[in-house]
């Protein structure tokens, strides 16, 4: 069984998808000759030709606008925007066009666009290279949003996203690109449809809910907590829109406590949605308010301050403790 990094598994998913579906087009800044700044598209141009895998000029809005036009002509575009923070110039196209063209045309024009977006922080990169935009995307009707936490999840979710008939924002946790896992991507698996989450570790005292790179961090926390006899369930939310509210409710009905963890700033982050949903569904079960451990309400900082910004193991543990010790009124 091959050992693959997330970067390799995504590369393989793109390769296999291109082999299976000759309407798939891959494009973006530096995705062709260079194979992407993270090498996720490495070798694809040579395999599939420069008509199917190509570089674009440096303009994110046109990249997404071009995807709309290509989709209208029956292609299945898989554009890349090079870094999270540079999707802002394309937000108008994403919100006002990509997400609405199917609706606007009353279902006539399909938009099977998968936007690959290297996302989140943790790699001590320059400004605008560590942003978390999931709350923005999840708020937009017509979009689906997904983020893988492991190489095998990456492989299968990317294939699922590209196969999806609707636009999907595929948020790749760049701090996990080089993380490795042994799995056989050719082995058939059940589909991972939008709106399904994944219990990564079972537990009964509280549920940790996370996505992207924070899943691994929560697993570490669960490991540490287990040493003290605290059994934490870890849920990889994975699909950030639609959210698997049934899955979350099932876990919290059991554990009666939940902590949601993300990198984005606290205020109006997706943690608020998770908190509201879980509370709406599990109010009677909950023994404590859902805790949020998130980035702070500050711009994503420079590398030296990054570890202070990101949810730390200690901050998550404190939140777990708060939830466990909570007494009503």
């Amino acid at each position, binding site marked *: 069984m091959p050992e693959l990094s997330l970067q390799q598994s995504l590369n393989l998913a793109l390769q296999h998808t291109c082999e299976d579906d000759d309407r798939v*087009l891959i494009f973006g800044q530096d995705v062709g000759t260079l194979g992407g700044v993270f090498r996720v598209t490495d070798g694809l141009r040579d395999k599939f030709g420069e*008509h199917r895998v190509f570089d*674009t*000029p440096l*303009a994110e*809005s*046109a990249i*997404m*606008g*071009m*995807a*709309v*036009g*290509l*989709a*209208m*002509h*029956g*292609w299945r*575009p898989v554009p890349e925007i090079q870094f999270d923070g540079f999707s802002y110039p394309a937000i*108008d*196209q994403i919100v*006002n*066009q990509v997400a609405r*063209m*199917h*609706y*606007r*045309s*009353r*279902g*006539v*024009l*399909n938009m099977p666009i998968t936007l690959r977006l290297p996302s989140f922080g943790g790699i001590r990169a320059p400004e605008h290279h560590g942003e978390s935009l999931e709350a923005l995307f999840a708020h937009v*009707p*017509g979009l*689906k949003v997904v983020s893988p936490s492991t190489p095998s999840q990456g492989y299968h979710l990317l294939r699922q996203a590209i196969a999806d*008939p*609707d636009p999907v924002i595929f948020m790749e946790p760049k701090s996990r690109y080089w993380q490795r896992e042994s799995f056989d991507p050719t082995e058939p698996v059940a589909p991972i449809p*939008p*709106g399904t989450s994944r219990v990564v570790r079972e537990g009964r005292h509280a549920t940790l809910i996370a996505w992207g790179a924070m899943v691994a961090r929560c697993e570490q926390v669960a490991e540490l907590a287990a040493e003290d006899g605290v059994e934490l369930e870890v849920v990889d939310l994975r699909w950030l829109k*639609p*959210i698997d*509210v049934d899955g979350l409710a099932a876990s919290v009905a059991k554990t009666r406590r939940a902590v949601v963890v993300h990198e984005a700033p606290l205020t109006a982050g997706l943690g608020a949605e998770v908190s509201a949903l879980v509370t709406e569904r599990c109010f009677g079960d909950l023994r404590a308010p859902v805790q949020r451990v998130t980035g702070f309400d500050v711009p994503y900082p420079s590398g030296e301050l990054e570890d202070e910004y990101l949810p730390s193991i200690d901050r998550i543990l404190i939140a777990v403790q708060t939830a466990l010790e909570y007494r009503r009124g």
Partner: protein
Amino acid sequence: MDVADLKALHRLMLVARRLDEEAIALQRQGVLPAYAPAKGQEAAQVGSAAALDLSRDFAFPGYRDLGAAVAMGVDLVSYLATHLNIWHGGLYDPQASRLAPFNAVVGGPVTHAVGWAMGAKLDETGGAAISYFGDGSSSQGDVHEAMNFAGVYRLPVVFFCQNNGWAISVPTDQQVAGGSVAARAAGYGFEGHRVDGNDVSAVFEATRAALDRARDGGGPTVIEAMTYRMGPHSTSDDPGRYRTLEDEQAWTERDPLAAAAKQLPADEVAASEEHVANVVREVREGLLALQAPPAEELFSFVYREPTKALLEQQRAWKESLDA
């Protein structure tokens, strides 16, 4: 149409004009909540759209392109349904009509034409895209990005700018630095032409030439059709606040419809008027008969299949109706 057939072009312009008048009347009667008049721009819209080969080309309109819809044979009740507040994109089938949905984002759809043109090139259909936008829209970053992409890939696309002198209250000289949208083309390494946008044959010829060049791999073209928005920006606009009657008067003398009619025998024009009156009556009746969409449609078309969350919201909404 193979060559500029003035009689046919005139008749299409007449449909656009009379329908525009009808729409304004319907707005005054409270049938249409609002409307964006196209009066004065019929030659630009009809002349360019008539040059398309509907078996393979595709047009990307804005919100003031009734004449293009007329020339393309789009179902006009479905087209005007957007102004009836029935559906934002219109009710026509964009794929069958070769006309993208009504689009109210100034600049945004121009990049779609470029993407579509690339799709056509990759599929080797010989199809070309035409993108409609205004002098005001030319200021948007998206228009630049679109032109640059089209130039880099040499795509079969025509950037058709209707320079009607105004973007709501802002005149072209305070909008377009340098004064000419066509002149921008040189900076992207492709052709740009100004045409008299009130001369329907000239517009037809220029567009046909640009489409042919596009098909032959000659790359994109900017056509800047110099015209004038004779009416208000929309039925809630008051042009008296920003332009003079003399200004408007000067352009009345250059009315594109009158200019075309002058070149035709009077009896042909009269026959067309008669024909058009029938068309307009039918559209009017169609509009008056058009039903509002069933309220359930609020939840339709967001995705190919509704999500569980949406179904749940729909259920709650239905319950609230019974409350």
